[in-house]
């Protein structure tokens, strides 16, 4: 039932490490560098002369290149030979409704624009293919076509994007009974290529800076719609915010923005600022 926490953390950790010293050497090259570098270093040290010292230094450099996967020469020349591994995000939520009902809501793909924060519209082209439109940064939109790969009533739905879509990914949603009187465990799995260029920007926006959290938020919305019939909101409610800042004595409405996100400094303890 638990959604593989270690496999979820790895892509995030990898992303953090890449910022410091990005991997730009392919894995086979790293093995060769590592073995050859170590051998050269051992040889060089055993010669003990100036020439031996130079060989040892070169060997050590190669060994480090193998160990870290970062090559300064490649970086200087703008070469990137790192293996592009796709990113996998998995997340589950329990929804207090029967699996069949949840499957039918999801299978009616047009409903999913209510669930996924950045998806604007989904249109079904035929029984297997659908067209998706999503918000991209700066008011632009991105679109892609998807096809259904697997479809078992009340159990699973799997899909992948087609052809030259901007946003290449594959995904699945599974529905499993959670046990007597507890509804259904809904598990989503999404795999996408680490993108570059325009598609990269689009996908970064789609899945958020923390893809796991974005999917968790989207799944929570799915649960709210299916259990409660609506997504809770405070957007548009009154407050004394504006009158407090002195700009208006009459007060204004909350701007139509996202719900309150915590300031890190406010988390948990202590007094509000």
């Amino acid at each position, binding site marked *: 039932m638990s959604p593989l926490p270690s496999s979820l953390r790895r892509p995030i950790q990898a992303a953090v490490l890449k910022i410091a010293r990005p991997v730009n050497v392919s894995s086979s090259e790293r093995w060769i560098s590592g073995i050859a570098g170590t051998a050269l270093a051992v040889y060089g040290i055993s010669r003990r002369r100036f020439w031996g010292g130079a060989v040892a230094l070169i060997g050590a450099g190669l060994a480090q290149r193998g160990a870290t996967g970062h090559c300064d020469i490649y970086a200087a020349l703008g070469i990137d030979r790192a293996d592009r591994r796709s990113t996998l995000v998995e997340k589950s939520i*329990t929804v*207090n409704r029967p699996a069949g009902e949840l499957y039918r809501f999801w299978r009616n793909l047009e409903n999913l624009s209510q669930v996924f924060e950045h998806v604007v519209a989904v249109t079904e082209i035929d029984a297997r293919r659908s067209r998706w439109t999503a918000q991209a940064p700066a008011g632009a939109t991105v679109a892609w076509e998807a096809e259904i790969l697997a479809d078992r009533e009340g159990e699973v739905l799997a899909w992948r994007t087609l052809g030259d879509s901007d946003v290449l990914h594959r995904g699945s949603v599974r529905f499993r009974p959670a046990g007597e009187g*507890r*509804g259904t465990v809904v598990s989503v799995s999404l795999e996408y290529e680490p993108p570059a260029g325009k598609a990269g920007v689009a996908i970064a926006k789609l899945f958020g800076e923390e893809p796991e*959290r974005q999917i*968790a*938020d989207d799944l*929570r919305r799915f*649960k*709210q719609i299916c*259990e*409660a*019939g*609506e*997504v*809770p*909101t*405070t*957007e*548009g*409610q*009154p*407050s*004394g*915010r*504006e*009158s*407090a800042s002195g700009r208006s*004595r*009459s*007060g*204004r*409405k909350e701007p139509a923005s996202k*719900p*309150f*996100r*915590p300031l890190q400094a*406010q*988390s*948990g*303890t*202590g*007094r*509000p600022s």
Partner: protein
Amino acid sequence: MKALCWYGRKDVRVENVPDPEILAPRDAIVKITSTAICGSDLHLYDGFIPTMRRGDILGHEFMGEVVEVGKANTRLKIGDRVVVPFTISCGGCFFCQKGLFSACDNTNPNAALADKLYGYSGAGIFGYSHLYGGYAGGQAEYARVPFAQVGPLKLPENLPDEKVLFLSDIFPTGYMAAENCNIEPGDTVAIWGAGPVGQFAIRSAFLLGAGRVFSIDDVPERLRLAEEGGAIPIDDSDEDVLERLDEETGGIGPDSCMDAVGMEAHGKGLQAAYDRVKQSLRLETDRPGVLRIAIQACRKGGTVSIPGVYGGLIDKVPIGAAFAKGITLKMGQTHVQKYLRPLLERVEKGEIDPSFVISHRMSLDEAPAAYSMFRAHEDGCTKVVLKP
């Protein structure tokens, strides 16, 4: 409309703000006829609850008349007279269906924040910080009530506001706290805090079969009110409470002890000074003086019930004593919806008249003065009802 807004520590003001509107299909708008200041509002007033924002509208004990309903709200009609529970619940999740309404999965728009802090988020609450959803509260002329097909209770016309207003929070809260005491007929219950929740807890304990109830506080008029409710008052400013309870129970200790004070306990002596210093240095968010002594006083195998609000971390809690004596701890936000009908019936039958707790009736404009008076226990202030 006019609304009481929070601007910081000990800074609340009545401001003109826009009227609320229907924002979701199950909403209702209620024109408020009576609203009250809760003891837990003082934790906001004193600045101890995190994630408040300047301009937030306070208030979670209110009632009134329905003036508008959302298109998917099939339960309420314009003109219905309702009391509104302070917890907002969806009615459809696992927790709501188990009657654990304050643990509702679906009504906190900031659930991700509460998940981070508490592991899992509870229900949204009116006017009680963004951690609990950031909903505008009911110390105002109008309020938007989300998920109004689940929460609000329709009221019979013959009962005046003052007899039913407290169904919104403090009566169910005191009642659930007494229920959490696991009272058996003839039991002895010791209740710290003779504020409004403590007062309802005293009367609820008797309704549930308690033989004797001790009420511990240091405010004379509150102890008098407790005595009127049948409790034996103990003034902890001039008596050793542990010794007295031990003596009164023949060396056994009370069967149940209740902390109806919470995170801002005043305490006495060195220990209280320690908590104040730690709290002001933010090494501890809550001052658990009452909780400590309640655990210490409780008999072996007894129950400690905690309706007093805690928000964060506490220190030096005698968990060893609780363990050694096999004590049960019960606590949490009130599942108000579960108690609305049964408690309304008790009011209708005349078993209890909740208006006994009211000490002051004021206008909404006077709310800032009312907060300051309630905070300082001035003028015998136990409970303020505001008329918008």
